[in-house]
């Protein structure tokens, strides 16, 4: 870092010198009397156009440009056709320009139809621009820049913040769900602050992360898990973007094909999500405030046996096992006296309130634009005691220093507090309020007569802690502070050529406090209280030096070029302290010293660096033929000494067919563009130091005490390098009916090679596995989007529909490895498997074929089995796949399901009538399957814990009584086999949001101080159509895994909610 610091200082000195020089130049130029004009486009690039003052006969024209509502449009451009003369409107929409009589003025502004006006003898021009129906003029942010949508040659989905805000959600990623073709977003955990799983055009990898790269306002953030370690409980999947409020979003662009992503080189293979936050705009000071209240409940409860039913099942089990009745009226009441008992789901679920506040202040003059905003979210989870709070402060400034220099500052600071309950079935000893609410017997109540928590002491040996007690007595709080900031200077060197330097930091501090009181009931291990404090501190530094060049040559050639050099480094440190055995619970985690059994402290430090050279060339000929070439050379510290550097090129070509005469003559198509691209990108998403042999610690006992021992963890692999993805994309964009209908479609083939695979190697080497570049995966797909804008009198209907089909296939693994198996399920249900096999999609479920229930002993004997063990009447029967009788082994397992959807879709509709707008947003997934691991636990062993009600209703009680659910016979869970009975259709169609908003008319507000006022009423997840019987089909227990998908096991359930809110603008 010392080097970086030194470099920073030298750089600043040079920069100051540069500024002085620049001032001198400006001064000189002005004394020469030359006139010059700077137009700032959305790209922050500077065009300089000179005006030749020596041509005579010009007249001065002035005027105002307004929109349909009579509001002035600042920043609109006015150009004299065929000359270099041009200007822009000021803050009041006024302009002045000098031109010859007969010249044509071209007036344009982003999002509005351009106009051309021939100059007669008038000197005052008042022009009204109408909003463009076409989206072609939209500016789309791409890597290191922005282009007009019409000039785009790659595949980029653009989602506008204003569209996202029409269907409000608590987190940014939630509000992105279903909005963009080719982007599959699922909730990984529905806990407040919980994470989402995002796959752009499928899963490319097995062991390396397949998460996309996130770039916030140009800052590529490292998507590392910032939840520190803690005692007992596993960290939840967290959302790397949970620190950003959805209200702050200007737009989100999703870069999908190689042409768009190769500019991010070694990090581009999984797609790139560019997040642009709002900035101040030209205009007077605006104050915006909004508030919403969200009232949420669990979307669905599971249908479990009640106390009477469970007692009946328990008695049946006793009879089947030759034991005296348990609910016999002596030790315990008879079943009929028990009734419904305790509904544990009611005990842990609640109506949860979420309050969201946003306040922003923004404005701008030609020289200075600024925005300051604050946001606060206080979200209760639908499980008692879970809560997430976030407060953020954001500031940005764009300042024009002089005609050559612009600077900008972004500052985004926020703090979040996640007060979590164990969930996802992965808590201390696998206990969690949710899982224990499903399994705890309804026979007992929450408290005994003395007011102590009652626990599930089952009829054999299993202990389940009271779910309310888990939620109320255990503590798990994570506080995260994040400051993302950067500052840049853009310096215009000569006409069309800009130099930009950008410095940024992303600082994350996170602290997690965990306390498990000594009253917590845990299995097997005696628990005497556990406290831990974990921290993570991560500093991410970015330096960027870029040159960009934009120029038009005549009317036929447009050229833009970009060159850059960046350095990004990260330092992460983590610490975990833990103490066990507390005599008192009163201090919780606040005094680790008071526990009598301190555990060894742990700490860890990791440094990474990425050096990059970036180049891009765009050439547009005659506004019709668009060529784009990019190349990035990345050096990453994570890779082997022999393979530090990789090159990632891409090329794209687009043809605006719509401008060809032959198409124009059809008069049916407004615009038509075909696009094609090919390129290479990389994935460097593996743990640092993976290529090195490191020594891990062990603590054997020598001489009566633990000593430190070290052992090497792997064979070094100096050849280790990135996964390489080659992607071909062909696409089409079309607009019909004067922009009212637009259509866009893409087809792609992606092939990822050199997978960063944990390869099994001969153990005689002293090592079991090694990370090597072996194997390949293919994703092919088709995606399209249709947009409609229509007007029926005063009713406006805007709708957008997108649909994506992705086909994933594992092509090859390491030689000698014909498949990989992965375990799924946790705790009671840890009996599942998924398989990765060449020729098949990743993540297929692998298990037995359920073939009904054995009805009679004769039936068992008839197929050649002996009666007993797994083959007894009343127990499940599984298909014998290899003809040697059913055995609990691999020969009788096969692929029993596929978690990959056939297609996903999103459908948004906005209907507006006068001041009333109704937005309906539908999202769906079709053809995927879910492994409901809950079923394995909840369809067996009623003597140990509660079961699904269907177990009571459909169980086998004698020959011919049931062919779906076993009799209560088994003791030790020995028959908890994962079979196709546990694999369910996960298709769903969800009305994700319905939002009715009303803009109060100004007459009603009666105050001209208020710019606008809106009230809205919305419903989230109100309707879901699915056959899935678990809590919710949108579930993914293993958020970060590429090979364990669609697994439901005690996940924090989905809620449905009603939201009311108000938006005020001043």
């Amino acid at each position, binding site marked *: 870092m010392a080097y970086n610091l030194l470099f920073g200082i030298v750089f600043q000195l040079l920069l100051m010198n540069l500024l002085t020089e620049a001032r001198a130049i400006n001064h000189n130029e002005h004394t020469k009397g030359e006139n010059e004009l700077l137009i700032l486009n959305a790209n922050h690039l500077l065009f300089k156009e000179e005006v030749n003052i020596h041509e005579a006969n010009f007249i001065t024209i002035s005027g105002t440009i307004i929109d349909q509502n009579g509001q002035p449009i600042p920043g609109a451009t006015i150009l004299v056709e065929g000359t270099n003369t041009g200007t822009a409107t000021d803050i009041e929409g006024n302009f002045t320009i000098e031109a010859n009589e007969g010249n044509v003025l071209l007036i344009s502004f982003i999002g509005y139809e351009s106009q051309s006006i021939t100059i007669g003898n008038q000197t005052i021009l008042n022009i009204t621009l109408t909003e463009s129906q076409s989206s072609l003029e939209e500016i789309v942010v791409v890597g290191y820049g922005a282009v007009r949508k019409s000039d785009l040659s790659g595949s980029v989905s653009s989602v506008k913040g204003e569209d996202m805000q029409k269907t409000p959600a608590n987190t940014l990623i939630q509000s992105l769900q279903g909005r963009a073709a080719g982007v599959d977003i699922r909730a990984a955990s529905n806990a407040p602050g919980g994470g989402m799983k995002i796959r752009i055009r499928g899963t490319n990898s097995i062991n390396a992360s397949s998460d996309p790269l996130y770039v916030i306002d140009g800052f590529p953030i490292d998507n590392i898990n910032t939840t520190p370690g803690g005692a007992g409980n596993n960290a939840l999947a967290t959302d790397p973007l949970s620190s950003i409020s959805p209200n702050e979003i200007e737009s989100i662009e999703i870069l999908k094909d190689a042409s768009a992503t190769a500019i991010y080189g070694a990090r581009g293979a999984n797609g790139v999500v560019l997040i642009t936050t709002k900035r101040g705009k030209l205009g007077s000071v605006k104050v915006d405030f909004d508030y919403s209240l969200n009232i949420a409940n669990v979307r669905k409860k599971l249908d479990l046996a009640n106390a009477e039913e469970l007692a009946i099942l328990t008695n049946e089990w006793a009879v089947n096992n030759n034991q005296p009745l348990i609910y016999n009226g002596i030790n315990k009441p008879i079943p009929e006296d028990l009734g419904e008992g305790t509904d544990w789901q009611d005990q842990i679920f609640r109506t949860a309130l979420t309050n969201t506040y946003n306040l922003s202040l923004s404005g701008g003059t030609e020289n200075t634009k600024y925005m300051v905003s604050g946001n606060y979210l206080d979200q209760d989870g639908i499980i008692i005691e879970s809560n997430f709070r976030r407060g953020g402060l954001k500031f940005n400034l764009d300042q024009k220093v002089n005609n050559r220099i612009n600077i900008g500052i972004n500052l985004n600071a926020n703090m979040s507090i996640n007060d979590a309950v164990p969930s996802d079935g992965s808590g201390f000893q696998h206990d969690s309020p949710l899982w224990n609410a499903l399994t705890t017997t309804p026979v007992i109540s929450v408290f005994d007569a003395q007011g102590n928590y009652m626990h599930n002491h089952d009829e054999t*040996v299993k202990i389940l802690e009271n779910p309310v007690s888990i939620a109320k007595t255990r503590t798990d709080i994570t506080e995260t502070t994040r400051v993302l900031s950067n500052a840049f200077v853009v310096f215009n060197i000569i006409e069309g050529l800009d130099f930009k330097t950008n410095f940024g930091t992303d600082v994350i501090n996170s602290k997690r406090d965990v306390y498990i009181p000594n009253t917590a009931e845990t299995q097997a291990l005696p628990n005497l209280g556990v406290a831990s404090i974990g921290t993570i501190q991560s500093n991410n530094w970015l330096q960027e030096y870029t040159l960009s060049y934009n120029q038009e040559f005549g009317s036929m050639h447009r050229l833009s070029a970009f060159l850059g050099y960046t350095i990004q480094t990260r330092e992460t440190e983590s610490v975990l302290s833990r103490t066990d055995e507390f005599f008192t619970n009163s201090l919780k985690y606040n005094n680790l010293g008071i526990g009598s059994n301190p555990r060894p402290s742990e700490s860890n430090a990791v440094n990474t660096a990425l050096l990059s050279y970036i180049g891009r060339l765009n050439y547009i000929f005659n506004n019709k033929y668009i060529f784009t070439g990019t190349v990035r050379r990345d050096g990453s510290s994570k890779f082997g000494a022999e393979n530090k550097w990789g090159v990632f090129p891409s090329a794209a070509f687009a043809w605006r067919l719509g401008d060809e005469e032959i198409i124009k003559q059809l008069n049916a198509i407004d615009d038509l563009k075909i696009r094609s691209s090919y390129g290479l990108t990389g994935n460097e998403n593996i743990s640092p130091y993976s290529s*090195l042999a490191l020594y891990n610690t062990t603590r054997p006992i020598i001489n009566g005490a*633990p000593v430190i021992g070290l052992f*090497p963890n792997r064979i070094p692999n100096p050849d280790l390098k990135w996964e390489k993805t080659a992607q071909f994309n062909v696409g089409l964009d079309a607009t019909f009916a004067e922009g009212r209908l637009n259509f866009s479609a893409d087809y792609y083939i992606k092939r990822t090679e050199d997978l960063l695979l944990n390869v099994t190697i001969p153990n005689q080497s002293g090592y079991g596995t090694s990370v090597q570049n072996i194997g390949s995966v293919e994703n092919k797909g088709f995606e399209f989007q249709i947009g409609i804008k229509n007007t029926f009198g005063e009713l406006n209907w805007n709708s957008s529909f997108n649909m994506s089909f992705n086909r994933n296939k594992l092509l090859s693994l390491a030689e000698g490895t014909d498949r990989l198996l992965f375990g799924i399920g946790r705790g009671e249900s840890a009996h599942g498997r998924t398989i990765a096999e060449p020729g098949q999609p990743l993540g297929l479920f692998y298990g037995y074929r359920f073939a009904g229930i054995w009805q009679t002993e004769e039936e068992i004997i008839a197929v050649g089995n002996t009666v007993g*063990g797994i083959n007894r009447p009343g127990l499940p029967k599984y298909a014998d796949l290899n003809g040697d009788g059913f055995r609990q082994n691999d020969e009788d397992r096969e692929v029993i399901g596929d978690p990959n959807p056939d297609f996903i879709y999103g459908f948004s509709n906005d209907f507006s009538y006068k001041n009333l707008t109704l937005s309906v947003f539908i999202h769906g997934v079709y053809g995927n399957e879910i492994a409901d691991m809950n079923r394995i636990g909840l369809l067996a062993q009623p003597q140990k814990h509660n079961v699904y009600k269907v177990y009571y209703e459909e169980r086998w009680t004698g020959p011919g009584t049931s062919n779906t659910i076993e009799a209560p016979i088994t003791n*030790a869970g020995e028959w908890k086999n994962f079979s196709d009975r546990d694999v369910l259709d996960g298709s769903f169609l969800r009305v994700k949001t319905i939002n009715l908003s009303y803009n109060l008319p100004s007459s009603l507000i009666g105050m001209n101080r208020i710019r606008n006022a809106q009230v809205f009423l919305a419903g989230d997840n109100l309707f879901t159509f699915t056959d899935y019987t678990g809590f919710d089909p949108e579930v993914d227990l293993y958020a970060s895994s590429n090979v364990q998908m669609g697994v439901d096991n005690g996940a924090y359930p989905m809620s449905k909610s009603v939201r009311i809110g108000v938006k005020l603008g001043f």
Partner: protein
Amino acid sequence: MDQIMKNTLKLRIYIIILIIFPLKACDDLLVEDPPSNISLANFYQSEEDVLVGLYGAYSNLYGLVSQAPNYGEMIADDMTISPIVPDAFEWDEFTFNSEVTSGLWSQCYTAINRANEVIRYTEGIDFEVGRKADLIAEARALRAIYYFHLARAMGGVPLYDSPTVGFDNIYEPRSTEDAVYDFIIQDLQIAADELEPSSPSGRINSDIANALLARIYLYRGDFQNALSHAEAVINSGRYRLLDDYADLFKAENNNSIEHIYQIQYLSGEINNPLPGRYGPRAPSGPYGRSFWAGTTIPGSYAPSAEFVAENPESYRRSVTIADHYDHIDGVSGVITMLEVYGGGFPYYISKFNDREGELQSGVNYTVMRYADILLIAAEALNETDPTDPKKYEWINRVRERARNGVESDLPDLTATTQDQFRTAVLEERRFELAFENQRAWDLKRRNLFLNKMRAQGKNVEDFMLLFPIPDMQTQLNPNLEQNPGW
């Protein structure tokens, strides 16, 4: 205008400098130097480093313990699974497949590589020659222990005398069994010659090396060497039998004067997993949440009917097995296993009971104790010089302690034929070292295993005397030949 041109030019130069300047030295950023991890670059530089590396190799011993009863007892005649475990157990029934040894294979080879690192890298460190030789000898002894575990189970295995540094040498074929044993004996002999006779508990010393050599020579049928190494331990005078047989298995007697080598445990730090598996199990009922009623482990151990029937009445027997227990958690008074098991087989293995430790037992695991050495010496002497009366002295010392003063239970042996003595010493080992994971190996080395097991009605094939090489390993390394039959 010239001035402008000049300035512009200057600017451009600056910009070029700005862009070029950082490029040179920044490549250093890509060199990984993990701040919180030891790597080979900063390891094996001092005597302390060697010790830490050595402890890394020691730690694999723990991985051998949890399956030791399966290899040593469960597949043999004295142990079976607890009556309340509902399933048949593959180790008891010889139904295991060829992955059964994968744990042993990986534990041993991981450890061998660690020991090889110590042996290789210690050479290059500059410290006192004697201590350096000691540490290398200790690593060799450890390496020998792991190779012995492999060879005993699977025969000849690939031999490595240096650590793995790249991917080139990871596909070595098997060496012969003799070559592996020569290697083991050479390593242990160096340790026996080089090391001091005493060491901190848990670390290897020359007595331990000698004791292991005695056992290995016995396995090899080299009775002369077995005897001489056993005598070296006996004659050292550093060991004696504890007075009370029951004391051997208690945490307070860890590393006692009888224990020659134990794998070290410390309650709450590293818990011995075995004592919990010998406990009787209560399937349901009034015992609630107790150690005894803890989760049933597939393969919980119980004595076989033959063991119970053939074990002569003695104090030792009463320590070894029991059919009742006293006031378990929450229930006072004597509870018989007959009641608990509802009429099933009413015995459990009681000698390792560690109720104090509950499931966090800190009792050490005994690899070698003095009684074993006495019996090895007696057995070897009976083969080399059957007339030497010292063999009676040695075996009778063990019997005397076992009978605990009740002369009629296990009277002293006198005047047996050589063959009678062979049988007697094997039976003595069976009951003295019961469930200490020696039985199956004793039967195998004496060629009695197949007959014994078939007499118990077990379906055991001739080839099962040797365990399989893990199938996955033969797939990963085509040079690796599977044992016949598997």
